[in-house]
């Protein structure tokens, strides 16, 4: 009885997982237009520079934006920054995809506005890498239904670099050096004390 219950629970969990399996990126239509202020190859600094993004529904496409309820604009890694870094991998299943890890803005979708504009100060925790910008539209169930991006299908154009902050400060460097010097000096101090004690011992 208990084992049957356990198996049923297990199956339920597995089923639930496949329900939330995630939308495939390749199934999404590119119906949103988006541009970002940095030109191809531009280098920006985290914590200092801003990115202005403007996005809107592409009227010329044969599709309807009725199901779009929320929009999220994200900063995404370009392929060159994903090489040998499994934690940034692009996977078709969007629930497992790790390409876009930084949210620029997220808000409700407003069909009446043609062109949304947003200015974003690049946050200090954005690492040094090459990026592009992508926007996803979500339906009321929270699933992705459409996208747009500032680069082409092969992700070669419209890429820009962001230089991250180093995180180092002068005070940290001084503290490191001082403590290290103290550590070594104290060792030699102890040696001297030991030697003096031993000399005294053997004289007795």
């Amino acid at each position, binding site marked *: 009885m208990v084992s049957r219950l356990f198996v049923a629970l297990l199956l339920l969990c597995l089923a639930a997982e496949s329900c939330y399996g995630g939308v495939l990126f390749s199934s999404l239509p590119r119906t949103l237009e988006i541009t970002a202020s940095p030109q191809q190859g531009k280098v920006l600094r985290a914590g200092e520079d801003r990115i202005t993004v403007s996005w809107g529904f592409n009227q010329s496409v044969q599709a309807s934006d009725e199901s779009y309820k929320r929009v999220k604009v994200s900063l995404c890694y370009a392929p060159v920054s994903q090489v*040998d*870094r*499994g*934690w940034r991998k692009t996977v078709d299943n969007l629930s497992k995809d790790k390409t876009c890890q930084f949210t620029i803005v997220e808000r409700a979708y407003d069909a009446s506005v043609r062109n949304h504009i947003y200015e974003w100060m690049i946050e*200090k925790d954005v690492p*040094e890498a090459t990026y592009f910008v992508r926007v996803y539209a979500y339906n009321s169930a929270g699933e992705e239904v459409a996208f747009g991006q500032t680069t082409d299908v092969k992700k070669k154009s419209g890429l820009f670099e962001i230089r991250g902050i*180093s995180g180092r400060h002068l005070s940290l460097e001084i503290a490191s050096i001082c403590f290290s010097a103290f*550590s070594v000096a104290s060792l030699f101090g102890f040696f001297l004390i*030991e030697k003096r004690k031993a000399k005294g011992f053997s004289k007795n």
Partner: protein
Amino acid sequence: MDVESAAVESQAPKFALPVDSEHKATEFRLFSVAAPHMRAFHLSWISFFCCFVSSFAAPPLLPIIRDNLNLTATDIGNAGIASVTGAVFARLAMGTACDLFGPRLASASLILLTAPAVYFTSIASSSISFLLVRFFTGFSLATFVSTQFWMSSMFSAPVVGTANGVSGGWGNLGGGATQLIMPLVFALIVNIGAVEFTAWRIAFFIPALFQMLSAFAVLTLGQDLPDGNFKNLQKSGDKEKDKFSKVFYHGITNYRGWILALTYGYCFGVELTIDNIIAEYFYDRFNLKLHTAGIIAASSGLANLFARPGGGIISDAVAKRFGMRGRLWALWVVQTLGGLFCILLGRVDSLSASIVVLIVFSVFVQTACGLTFGVVPFVSRRSLGVISGMTGGGGNVGAVLTQLIFFKGSKYSKETGITLMGIMIICCTLPIMLIYFPQWGGMFCGPSQNISSEEDYYLSEWNSQEREKGLHQGSLKFAENCRAERGKVKGLNSDEAQSTNI
């Protein structure tokens, strides 16, 4: 015989614990801090714990560090390998240093000289500087050897396995504790208001400070031997200064040291590898938060609280009944089982199953570590430090090899790497079958037919000139004290066996 012992007793200082003829404690009282035995125990495990915390402080914060320093998977793998490479030779050097200068000075020197590497981690700015700081910080893991040497100098044969196991285990605990401590310290600093890329740097001052303070404690409160410190004993003539070349020679020519080095590489080396890769493995594979991945990774290292000491206790318990042969069998069985659970770990797919298998696997592997150091104190008396250093160094070689073959770059997925590591554990544990002590036997053979005694074995390390000078007295006393490694002789118990010696 009675007159002699009475004379010895009237000269000998009073000790808080019962002692044998070498003044080594015959009992292990965990909650005592009495000098010199239990105090040495607490000083050694705490300082070793701090070194472990420092050496593995980076892995739980890697998701932040890899973005700050723009590291690739290869860079991370290389740094992980570097972190355990330094200690390979440092452990051997430490073993020799202990034989020559005493564990107190040897360990404190190493700890204070490697503390700068931990401080400098705060200002690392590239993959190369990151690799260098991890490399030099890793040298501090050689304090393991001084810990084991110190325990073997302070505790007698019936309890040396336990003392070695508890001190080694509670030190290794640092590798688990750091997976909890560092994310916590990091979160605290971020809360205070620091940016993430600065917060991790500040966080490194904590392990560095603790490491430094523990060295000060060892220097001011510790003592090399029950009778005093090396330097004082050497000056007063109570301890002969031994020659480096002889100590080294007798250590490296003992084949048992090499076998134990290999097998230790596949229990302790595996433990180190897991310390380096497991947090990232859980973070990436199961999409966990940094904090959660750290807790799971910690649970593996935290098993050291009881697993490794358990290994030492099991070794001593088995030896009471079966002697050295029992110690060897226990080691082989437990380590092989560890390999089997490792294979399983790489195969399970769900988070909860992975956690359970990880903990079981860690317990077996760490128990095997404790069992190994139940055998090491008996391999050599003159070159105890060198043998401890070889075994300890071998542990790190195992970690280097395993990370190089299975966990560098993106060749094998981490799951596959873990399974293959399990297979390698089983294969590299087989050589235990080749260890043979003429006076006690091996796994499959009994003691030698020509009457071979403990004295024959340990005195073979001293030539006739050295014996004339009386340099072998320590080994003689030791041989007498480890008579119990014969196990319960048929018809005689170990007390009677002791009185039938020459």
